[in-house]
């Protein structure tokens, strides 16, 4: 049964008549079934219609892979109608990943060499769209032949194909380089356009090509000049500018050729000045050319006056009412801000104006540019503008804006107070969007600014009292209140209006943070710790704090529970230590891994336990041992308070500085090991307290005779169980009459605490003789190895 075949138009009509997605799918599925049947055994003359329908369906998003083989058949057909649709199908349906694509290589080859012009055009088009590396290699010579054919249409199409081939297979550049020079002499604009693109591609890939093509700069200048000066021509002009596309491409190529090359740049100077001043800027085409000119001027080694002209043109464009022009101006200025910073700075006010645009693309560009323009002199003004922008900006720009402001503040902050204010403002406005390390940075900053503690804590308290939802702000505020709560209660800050804060208010606020649904677990941790710290800072009794802490002892969050239990214990059993432990924190070190509250506290815990690690029989260890018992948490010992009087090893407060200061070891006596004709060798020993297995021996060679000691070398040997390291001596000459002695350091590692034995070998010249001595050091004191 012959099913009547729909034409493409009819199919489209039917699809449009479908009222729902499901109906459309039904129609298309039915039609695809027909198409498949027709491909199998239908009329070959109708095949192109079927494929056209299939391509339409493909565009709507339905599967069409079964048409791939049909494309091949159609391409192989002699009819132009078939080839047209076949090639289109190949471009839309086939690609490198399907093996079938190689099968069309032969057809393309035939068409390229024997087809009529439109067919050659089709083949070239297909090759440039989906040609894989293998195809390009096979067909390179064909394309090269076509580059030099008489027909401009075919040549015009062959050139972008060559560009595509070079992109896929860079080695083919060699084939396509020679024809370029000839092609540049063409008058046909399409060919010129393609040729310039080809030359650009070659230059970008190969510095040798770049040097080769510098020779054509005068020719390019000539072509551009002709374009600019010839009057209105209907052929290629767009709103009064002759072939702006070609002008733009030539300017691009000039930019590549003139970069870092004085001679070429000089050749172009006049022309660029001419284009910059004469181009009509009332329409988009003229502006396109002008922009390209400006970018070229800035990129090559142009005269200073020209550069100034270029930046002024950009400045003028920033004031243009057309949004597109302003967008491109901002983009260009962003590119220039690295190289010509001062020139761009002059336009800062206009850039800042653009921040207030409602257009999202424009304001994004303006933001990037503004952040790049911040420097130490304008940081205050710029930050103000940026903060105003932050408040009104769309959400996707907020994170960028916030981090930009914080970064700029870090680099250029004029005063610490301003810095703190800025960060505070950012946290209040856009707290949810700041980076994670902002909290750590701010706490470190505040901690370091001694004089601003009172100010910071007052401001943070007011900010917190207003709004407890911004997590970074809450965390910093909680930390500050905990640390400097006493300053807050004094209310003695001059710079802010005097704040009369009651203890109860502070505690109530912190409790509110603890209980709020909005607080993250980390924030709760901060708040709990802050409450604890306040127990020593505030003057009132601590019942309220103790209550809160004991409630959280049964909290479901493990972190909070642990803290609460520890703090509880601190209240109950170790009340005497509480003041010391909760003292003001030393300044956190910047850089390295992020140090936040929890890490610091756990570090302290680790360090405390390290300090109590068993130390070899030191007389003062008894007091430390008491401490050991305490930390082991044995209930019976905890009844009697350990002596708090300072022991030589350091007070409890110094537990927080590490390493724990152990008592200095008794000094070991020096040893004279060698003497000959006024040359003496002395050994002095040190055992550093931190490493018990290490012995440092300093060998000092002195000369009290009347002759110099020269070429002095001392070598040492120790038993196998030891490790010996000789450091470089201070010299190898000891002048006569008690001149400067030579010292040399030996490091001896004695992990087994075996008895030390040391053999020394000396060689030197003295009094006209060369001396060599080998001897074992006797009488080594016991302390050197025990």
């Amino acid at each position, binding site marked *: 049964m012959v099913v009547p075949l729909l034409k493409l138009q009819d199919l489209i009509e039917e699809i449009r008549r479908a009222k729902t997605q499901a109906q459309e799918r039904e129609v298309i599925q039915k039609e695809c079934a027909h198409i498949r049947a027709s491909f199998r055994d239908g009329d070959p003359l109708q095949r192109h219609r079927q494929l056209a329908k299939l391509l339409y369906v493909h*565009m*709507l998003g339905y599967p069409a892979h079964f048409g791939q083989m049909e494309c091949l058949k159609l391409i192989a057909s002699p009819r132009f109608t078939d080839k047209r649709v076949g090639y289109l199908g190949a471009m839309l349906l086939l690609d490198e990943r399907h093996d079938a694509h190689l099968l069309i290589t032969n057809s393309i080859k035939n068409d390229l060499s024997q087809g009529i012009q*439109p067919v050659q055009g089709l083949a070239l088009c297909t090759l440039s769209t989906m040609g894989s590396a293998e195809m390009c290699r096979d067909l390179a010579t064909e394309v090269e032949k076509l580059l030099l054919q008489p027909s401009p249409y075919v040549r015009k199409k062959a050139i*972008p*194909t060559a560009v*595509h081939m070079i992109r896929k297979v860079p080695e083919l550049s060699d084939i396509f380089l020679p024809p370029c020079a000839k092609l540049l002499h063409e008058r046909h604009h399409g060919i010129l356009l393609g040729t310039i693109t080809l030359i650009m591609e070659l230059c970008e890939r190969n510095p040798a090509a770049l040097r080769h093509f510098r020779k054509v700069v005068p020719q390019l200048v000539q072509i551009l000049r002709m374009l600019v000066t010839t009057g209105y021509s209907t052929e290629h002009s767009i709103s009064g500018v002759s072939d702006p596309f070609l002008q733009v491409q030539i300017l*691009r190529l000039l930019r590549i050729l003139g970069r870092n090359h004085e001679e070429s740049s000089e050749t172009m100077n006049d022309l660029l000045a001419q284009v910059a001043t004469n181009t009509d800027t009332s329409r988009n*085409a003229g502006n396109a050319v002008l922009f390209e000119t400006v970018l070229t001027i800035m990129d090559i080694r142009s005269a200073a006056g020209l550069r100034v002209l270029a930046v002024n043109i950009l400045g003028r464009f920033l004031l243009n009412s057309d949004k*597109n022009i302003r967008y*491109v101006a901002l983009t260009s200025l962003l590119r220039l801000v690295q190289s010509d910073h001062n020139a761009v700075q002059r336009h800062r006010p206009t850039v800042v104006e653009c921040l207030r645009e409602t257009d999202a693309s424009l304001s994004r560009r303006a933001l990037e540019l503004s952040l790049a323009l911040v420097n130490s002199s304008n940081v205050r003004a710029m930050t103000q503008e940026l903060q105003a922008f932050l408040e009104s900006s769309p959400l996707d720009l907020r994170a960028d804006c916030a981090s930009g402001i914080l970064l700029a503040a870090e680099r250029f902050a004029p005063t610490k107070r301003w810095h703190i204010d800025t960060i505070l403002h950012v946290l209040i406005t856009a707290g949810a969007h700041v980076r994670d390390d902002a909290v750590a940075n701010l706490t470190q900053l505040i901690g370091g600014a001694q004089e601003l503690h009172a100010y910071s804590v007052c401001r943070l308290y007011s900010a917190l009292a207003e709004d407890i939802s911004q997590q970074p702000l809450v965390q910093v505020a909680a930390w500050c209140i905990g640390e400097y709560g006493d300053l807050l209660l004094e209310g003695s800050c001059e710079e802010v209006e005097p704040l009369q804060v009651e203890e109860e208010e502070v505690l109530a606020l912190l409790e509110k943070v603890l209980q709020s649904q909005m607080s993250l677990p980390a924030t709760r941790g901060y708040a709990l710790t802050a409450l604890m710290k306040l127990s020593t800072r505030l003057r009132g009794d601590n019942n309220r704090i103790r209550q809160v802490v004991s409630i959280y002892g049964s909290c479901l969050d493990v972190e909070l529970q642990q803290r609460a239990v520890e703090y509880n214990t601190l209240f109950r059993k170790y009340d005497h230590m509480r003041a010391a432990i909760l003292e003001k924190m030393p300044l956190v070190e910047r850089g390295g891994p992020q140090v936040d509250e929890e890490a610091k506290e756990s570090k302290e815990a680790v360090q405390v336990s390290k300090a109590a690690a068993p130390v070899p029989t030191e007389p003062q260890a008894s007091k430390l041992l008491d401490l050991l018992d305490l930390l082991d948490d044995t209930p019976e010992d905890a009844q009697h308070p350990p002596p708090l009087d300072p022991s030589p090893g350091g007070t409890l407060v110094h537990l927080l500085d590490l390493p724990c200061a152990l008592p200095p070891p008794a000094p070991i006596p020096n040893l004279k090991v060698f003497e000959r004709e006024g040359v003496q060798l002395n050994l002095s020993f040190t055992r550093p307290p931190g490493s018990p297995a290490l012995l440092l021996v300093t060998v000092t060679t002195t000369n009290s005779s009347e002759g110099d000691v020269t070429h002095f070398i001392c070598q040492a040997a120790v038993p196998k169980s030891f490790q010996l390291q000789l450091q470089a001596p201070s010299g190898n000459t000891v002048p006569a009459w008690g001149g400067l002695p030579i010292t040399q350091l030996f490091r001896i590692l004695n992990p087994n605490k075996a008895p030390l034995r040391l053999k020394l070998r000396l060689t030197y010249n003295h009094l006209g003789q060369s001396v060599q001595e080998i001897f074992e050091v006797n009488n080594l004191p016991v302390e050197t190895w025990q």
Partner: protein
Amino acid sequence: MIQAILVFNNHGKPRLVRFYQRFPEEIQQQIVRETFHLVLKRDDNICNFLEGGSLIGGADYKLIYRHYATLYFVFCVDSSESELGILDLIQVFVETLDKCFENVCELDLIFHMDKVHYILQEVVMGGMVLETNMNEIVAQIEAQNRLEKSEGGLSAAPARAVSAVKNMNLPEIPRNINIGDINIKVPNLSQFV
């Protein structure tokens, strides 16, 4: 380089989809949808440049679009193309369509999708601008259309003619025309050959 050229209407239905970089089919459809959503959000009086969506490639790519009546023409380009130049290119393309279709409207694009592709092939090839002279482009297209017509005419004419006549509604030819006493016998003409 031009990565893709998309034309869709105000409801997001694609009218022309052409990629110059290889993407699998599902990604292509996703890109069309995503581009449509991005472009739909734009007011009419803001600039025609958009940073590209996440699918079509990284920070280097921009969407340059123009809105004509019911259609959006979107070119996705990388940084090697001049933005203002592409705006002009879109204009050239649309004017060429206008010349080829005589006052083009959306229906022309819908029903002649393949022809639109052929016209586009004369303007942009392999992601590069090929020709911007409208007269040349139109001349080429017309030459190709003539070629197709002549081919189609030679081989398909009989089949077409037969089907045309079958569908024609010929009025009944009277066998005998009787006007008074004049009796003209109409010869029996066979069916039109």
